[in-house]
């Protein structure tokens, strides 16, 4: 599958919502509500994804091959069988890394201009 995708740079810059979703599913498979909560927690409540934005992003990311849907639920979520879980793909991880590099590069440039504290 991976060789069908364009290079990770082709999808950059990644929409903010998509990047946060990738971060949320980086270490474990999550369902929609868990992603929203994770994003909100990690950004200190600054970014609260709405359900519509979440699933619109997820639909696109599924098409782009950044995510896959998985029915293998972790055992502790036994209470809800129909819930859908999302897992990051290798391609998704590559795109997330590329986006991180792009952002880091941007921050370095900004620092050189004295826009941010830290090493020049």
């Amino acid at each position, binding site marked *: 599958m991976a060789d069908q995708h364009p290079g990770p740079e082709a999808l950059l810059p990644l929409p903010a919502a998509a990047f946060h979703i990738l971060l949320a599913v980086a270490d474990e498979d999550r369902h*929609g509500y868990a992603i929203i909560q994770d994003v909100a927690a990690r950004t200190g409540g600054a970014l609260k994804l709405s*359900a519509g934005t979440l699933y619109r992003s997820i*639909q696109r990311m599924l098409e782009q091959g950044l995510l896959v849907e998985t029915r293998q639920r972790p055992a502790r979520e036994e209470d809800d069988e129909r819930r859908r879980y999302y897992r990051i793909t290798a391609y998704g991880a590559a795109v997330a890394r590329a986006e991180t590099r792009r952002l880091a590069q941007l921050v370095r440039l900004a620092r050189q201009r004295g826009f941010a504290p830290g090493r020049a």
Partner: protein
Amino acid sequence: MRLYRALLHLFPASFRIEYGEEMCRIFARRREAASGPLRVTALWLTTSFEMIPEALQVHWDILRQDLRYTARTLGRSPGFAATVVVVAALGIGASTAVVSITDHVLVRALPFPRPEELVKVWQKRLEYTRFELSPVAFRDWQRLSTSFSAMGAYTPMAANMVSSAEPARVDGTRVTAEIFHVLGVQPLAGRLFTADDERESASATLIISHRLWQTALGGDRGALGQKVLLDGEPFVVIGIMPRGFIFPNRDAQFWQPFRFGPRDYQDRNNNYLAALARLKPGVSLPAARTEMLLIAAQLDRQFPNGDEGNSANVVLLRDEVSAQTRMLLNVLSAAALCLLLIACSNLANLLLARALARRKEWAVRAALGAGRERLLRQMLTESLMLALLGGALGVLLAVWAAPLLVRLVPHTLPIAELPPLDVRLLLFAGSVTLVTGLGFGVLPALRACGGTVATNLHHGDRGGLGGRKQRLRSVLVVAEVAACMLLLVSSGLLIRALWRIQETDPGFRREGVLTLRTALPWPKYARTAPRFQFYNRVLEGAQSLPGVTGAAYISYLPMTMRGGIWGVKVAGRAPRPNESENASVRFVTPGFFAALGIPRKQGRDVAESDTMQSLQIAVVSESFVRRYFPDKDPLGQVFEFSFLRMRTIAGVVGDVRVRGMERDSEPQVYIPYRQVQDGWFTFYAPKDLVVRTAGDPMRHAPALRQIIRSADPEQPVSDVRLLADIVDADTAPRAVQVRVLGAFAALAFLLAGIGIHGLLSFTVSQRTQEIGVRVALGAQPRDILGLVLRESLVLGALGVTLGAALAYAAARALVSLLAGITPSDPLTFSAAIALALAMTLAGSLLPAIRALRVDPSTAMRIE
């Protein structure tokens, strides 16, 4: 929760089905987390506000996806895409062009403030419902009427204008000062006329059009106050009208005020004013009409006018469109919509065939999880995209084609030649496109998605035969043939009517005659002596040209001016009910009848010796004799001819169609050009030169100009054209309509042919196996041919029968345009039926050949 589910319907169904449950669950969690009514309300508010843009974005995502898919699939079959786009463009373009012209002429509000209040006020005399007013009648009406906030009068005129370049003839209008206030317009610069401008002692003033300002006066603001020479007299320019101001018709380039003196108010029969008025707010048209009828009746009692009962007629300015123009445009609009319908059914057929052919593809997509709604949406996107492309091309086509139709825009309305390309036109084209796209997209989409996935996958290419889909396609083809038949018959009938009219004898020989106009300006030529000298020098010069066999002057050529109708009185003859006692008057030089080829029947031509000192004579037409002196020898008879008093008939000539080929004309009276006194009837002073030549008449034009220049270097020459062109121009609106209608019929013919071809090709390909089996079982080529042709002939015959019935009904409605051709004209009908059947056969030819070529062994191996 139910509300939330309802809101979810904003999203596309595919998205809702996929994620709706999850979204509900998330919302439920949030709801639980929110404590207190305030928080719950806030949650609801934010959720619903977020939902709309989100839903739109999801729709947009899908649209983009579908468009990409559509572009890919259409790219794979460019022939199909091109056919669909061109067919849609033809339908949309034709209807947009015709409807925009029709809207322009018949519907759109006139370009003045509150145009619904503008009315024309006419006199009514016997069969004339639009008779001009005399200055005295206008003054009385203006004074006595209370229905109008203002009433003004005008009359078209033309003047010779000498600017730096060649002297030119410019059309203008003489108006009373009220006219501009009636219209409610303001000048671009300067001022409008006031009552002061109408005084006989005031200096001559002029208002000019934007175009004249730009062309003759250099578009400079300094033009205000400048002097312009019109017919040799200086006029001060006091106002410039804005660009796009048109009144009373698109030719008028300047406006000059009337200056009525006591003399103008003496004669109640000197009718030449058109009256325009504005209804007072709250006064209805019928109320104004009633008032004017009362006023006219009162004046008629006060100033009895002999035998004629004068009455009044008030009509909306918007309705100053002849019944014929209205009819021509309505017929064209109907035809254009008919063509659009044919195009749509053809497109539906094309898409249906394609949908059936692609059923396997759809089934595969459905099996991969695409919902029915998603597939439907995809197909609609495809058809709408094709329609949009077709619509864009169609608008271009309409813009390109509109100038071909300007001959249908009448001169009687103050509107531009061409409808402006505006929002209305684009809206119309847009909605037609949308309806077309949905119309030919929905049916095939519904049909194609109708079957279940399993059956479609299973049946593969073989499904659909003889089922409802096939029946639908047959119905579409029958409708196409019927509509095509309708267009063929109506255009056929109108072509025959046009031919009949063009074959009508105008009363003169139209070939080989060059005409031009030298309108002699007044007062330079108010005296007769310089006028006669001018005529003689020009005519002598013209007659000496090699190849010229006759040359003469007349006041107005037939079909160039329809007015000039004067009253006739014959001693001892009682007026007949419903028959006007009128004749048209023209002044001619000797040799006019010979030059135009009007046959002389009795007596003599007018002569140079017919002067004011000799017997006052007239040459009359045969219909004049029939009406006023039946059963008598006309020569030497005397009649009273309005201003010209007693006239003795010296000669009788053939009748001429003064009012044009399609209308009955009044009897004609010709007066010798020398039997007038200084300052008399300058309006009727001979101005049209006719020159009959052997060979091409146009080659004499430069020499004639030279002769006129040597007679009077300041005299402009206008309207240089062939007599044959004048006659053709008389039927031009009809000719344009017939040509457009003929083009529509040809397109309909082609489209219906394509429709039949498409249907049969599909049938044959579907039945390849069956045909193969039949051939294997010993069927002869004749049998196979019969199999294919039977279907097409049944459809063709059904369409022709239905179409013939429709066409007959349509022709009955057209009867006023048919010039005596009966609506059931057998020649037209049989020709149309033959054409339609020929088209059916031609459409089935290729599929039939393909059926004959079916090789049984290959056909049966396909499975």
